């Protein structure tokens, strides 16, 4: 953690919101882990379901999109935090 601050200080010694930039980077980076796993799981299960029962593919696909939207929203809230820290 300290190494990141020292590196940022080296590259940008006059910037007074270095810490905001570091925090912003951590915010989105950590926020993207959970939904990445979650969406992968949802889509994987949907593919399995569509392979087991091809006639249900339409309904499975609709529900898959809904599930993706819900989990992706969490990653996007992290992205909004990144934007707020970096640019406001």
């Amino acid at each position, binding site marked *: 953690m300290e190494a990141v601050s020292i590196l940022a200080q080296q590259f940008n010694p006059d910037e007074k919101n270095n810490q905001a930039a570091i925090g912003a980077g951590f915010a989105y980076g950590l926020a993207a882990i959970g939904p990445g796993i979650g969406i992968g799981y949802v889509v994987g299960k949907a593919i399995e379901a569509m392979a087991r029962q091809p006639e249900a593919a339409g309904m499975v696909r*609709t529900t898959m999109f*809904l599930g993706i939207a819900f989990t992706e929203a969490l990653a*996007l809230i992290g*992205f*909004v935090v990144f*934007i707020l820290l970096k640019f406001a």
Partner: protein
Amino acid sequence: MSVLALDFPEISHLLVWPDIFPTFNKVALIGVFSVVATVVIFLLANRKDPMVAPTGVRNVAEVSVDFIEDDIVMQTIGRDGLGWTPFLVSIFFFVFFCNITEIIPTAQMPATARMAIPATMALVVWLVYNAVGIKHQGFFSYIKNSCFPPGVPFALYFLVAPIEFVSTFIVRPFSLAIRLFANMLAGHLLLVTFAILTDALITANTAALKPLFVLPFFMLVFLTAFEILVSVLQAYIFTILTAVYIGGAAHPDH
């Protein structure tokens, strides 16, 4: 130590546009264009003969209405929700046209990348599904069914009820607005990043860097195509979530 850095423009240069006339800027112009485009499509489709096989604009309009009816309304609300089709078609087309201007060459700004349009639409959807719930179930019964879902052991209601209340009345409009806004903002920033990187490599002082511009250029092309998918998908997600919320308010626990 010397660092080769990219001169990224300020965020206000990417998202804040000057006024064309007071209180009206390019983002508002794109919003007006989206409304006009939707209305024009369906007005032109209406002039065609309904008795022959549909072609051209009428075909587009009929395919869209069938898509919303079969894949969105029937799947989420059921047969008695077909009266909601015009509302959902309007939402879908408005959000789609606001999103697709992200890649249209003279505009290249998704109107939904500013929070005004997503926030207002989320507010409208919130008012609509609460009004539907109150009308179908009565005010106190609607709140009771939303916060205390049946089938939960009694002692758990102390935990479940606040969570359900926050989830149904507060998180839903926020997540609708933020999902649409952040997706479009992220796409816009990605396109800007790769475009600026391509330009910086083409006009680089070091000759060794110049041929590298093909890499971000291919990313730019690929991302433009990907943004078409994201535009359609986000419009579809907004519409189907609206239908799900209306269905949940009209038919509790079905």
